[in-house]
């Protein structure tokens, strides 16, 4: 074959590779199980992830354009709402529950403290329409986004045309949510053979395995089930947890087990944020007997030294790389510079 033709073909291939949007693949962390999300239904695309990221940080989703998803889920605090027992939505309306940290969502089959949401793609609709949160409705949000030249351009780039449907809108948000993976803590390095625990962390790990791991199962540090931990019902909130959804008495005051990953950053703790410090949580568990959802009886007894060791282990679940991952942060260039240019 003519050398010139070969050169031209190679040049074309390289050019396409550079011009085409980067396809992002979901990379399963080595020590994690198979994710539950159906990626085939919503294959990753960097342009779609970009849209999801812009929407996550954009208050356009709320009725008065004051609250974004990130208002209650800040990336620097593992997407939790730090220092807020109950999150507040538009017009300072106080919510019903603590905004949990967001991470490793691809492994979950249901969402929220009571599992009310059955698919990650539908999760965004809950805060979007909740009167105490964004107080919007899907039709109106889509109307707003469809009026935005900035978003029209983004959707055209990602989907080939400017149509902004609920399907594209929710799938794009989902693509961004799926990027929120925390799997680079010291714990993970130890599990992958790249680091070792200190002797105190190691002691703490053994205490963890003996007392906590039934519910906070490794490596996600949640068994993804609904458990009850003997917390008295708050007389004002009267939150019955999972029973609100299933109406089964056995689900009374059972809540989805939160992950312990990045726990140092996700305070306050519990479904109603009643404990502001990690030591308050450990105090709650220091002498307790629990019955899990599969009827296992667990007795926990922790002395002062054990609580210190356990805390040392829990701090190995802090994932700095995740917390300061620029790809998950506010998309300054996209939302501020590009948008201003467009609108």
């Amino acid at each position: 074959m003519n050398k010139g033709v070969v050169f031209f073909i190679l040049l074309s291939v390289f050019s396409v590779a550079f011009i085409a949007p980067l396809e992002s693949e979901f990379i399963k962390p080595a020590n994690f199980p198979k994710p539950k999300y159906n990626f085939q239904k919503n294959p990753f695309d960097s342009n779609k992830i970009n849209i999801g990221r812009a929407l996550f940080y954009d208050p356009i989703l709320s009725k008065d354009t004051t609250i974004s998803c990130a208002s209650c889920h800040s990336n620097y605090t593992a997407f939790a709402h730090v220092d807020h027992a109950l999150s507040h939505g538009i017009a300072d309306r106080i919510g019903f529950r603590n905004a949990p940290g967001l991470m490793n969502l691809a492994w979950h089959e249901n969402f929220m403290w009571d599992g009310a949401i059955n698919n990650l793609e539908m999760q965004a609709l809950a805060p979007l329409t909740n009167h105490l949160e964004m107080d919007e409705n899907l039709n109106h949000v889509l109307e707003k986004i469809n009026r935005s030249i900035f978003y029209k351009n983004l959707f055209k780039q990602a989907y080939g045309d400017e149509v902004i449907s609920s399907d594209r809108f929710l799938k794009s948000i989902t693509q961004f949510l799926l990027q929120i993976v925390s799997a680079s803590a010291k714990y993970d390095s130890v599990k992958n053979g790249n680091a070792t625990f200190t002797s105190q962390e190691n002691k703490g790990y053994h205490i963890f395995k003996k007392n906590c791991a039934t519910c906070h199962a490794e490596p996600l540090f949640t068994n993804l089930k609904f458990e009850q931990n003997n917390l008295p019902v708050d007389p004002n909130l009267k939150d019955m947890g999972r029973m609100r959804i299933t109406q089964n008495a056995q689900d009374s005051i059972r809540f989805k087990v939160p992950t312990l990953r990045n726990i140092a950053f996700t305070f306050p703790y519990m479904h109603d944020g009643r404990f502001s410090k990690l030591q308050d949580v450990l105090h709650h568990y220091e002498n307790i007997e629990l019955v899990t959802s599969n009827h296992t009886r667990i007795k926990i007894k922790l002395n002062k030294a054990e609580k210190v060791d356990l805390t040392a282990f829990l701090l190995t679940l802090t994932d700095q790389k995740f917390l300061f991952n620029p790809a998950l942060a506010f998309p300054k260039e996209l939302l501020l510079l590009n948008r201003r240019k467009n609108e």
Partner: protein
Amino acid sequence: MNVRVCFKKIILLFLCCITLYSKAAAQSQKATFFLQTDFDQLYLNDSIKISKCVIYLTNFKFYNHAELVFKDTNQAHLIDLLDPSPIQFNIPANQVYNRVEFNIGVDSSTSVAGILTGDLDPRKGMYWAWQSGYINFKLEGILNTKAQQPFQYHIGGYAGKLNAIQTISFEVNPNNKYTLSFNFLPMLQYCLAQKQFELMSPQLKAVQLAKLLSENTTCIKVQNLSNE
């Protein structure tokens, strides 16, 4: 408000009808079957005004005795029973069938499938955002009494004992045209007798109301097309 007195004033039926219309195109290789909706607003006196009546009909299947011979490719049909449009199916000409089966409501596998399009788009107003799941049917209106009592029933639920989906089947003949009639009156009477004017979440009572509607749904032969 005296609900019983109100009932006495109600002429008996509130029926919402969909005509099932099927016709074999004998000469062609592919027979076309139509499901035609024909809303037959039965007489209500002024005591009740219905402002909304929408329903999901899903998973239409046609059987020849126990053998499944045709399955609707369209997952769900969202029908506005106050202004219904026909539903049509294209069934191959050589397929013989004697029974149609379908659901009132959206099944559990569809309910957990994430974002869907067409009639299952959450923009249609039949999706609970606060607790994932579709509303199988909505009935809203007002009792035109002195109190002007509004009522709203959003019936749904797909999981466990709160599963409100109803599967119904009727014997049908490809040469006939049928009307599916949804009689909401027993359900409405039941609610109003208990002064239950609102029901908008998955619950056992919703399952009961869905059953009442299902039990009062009929399939009526309208006309024999073979003589046409």
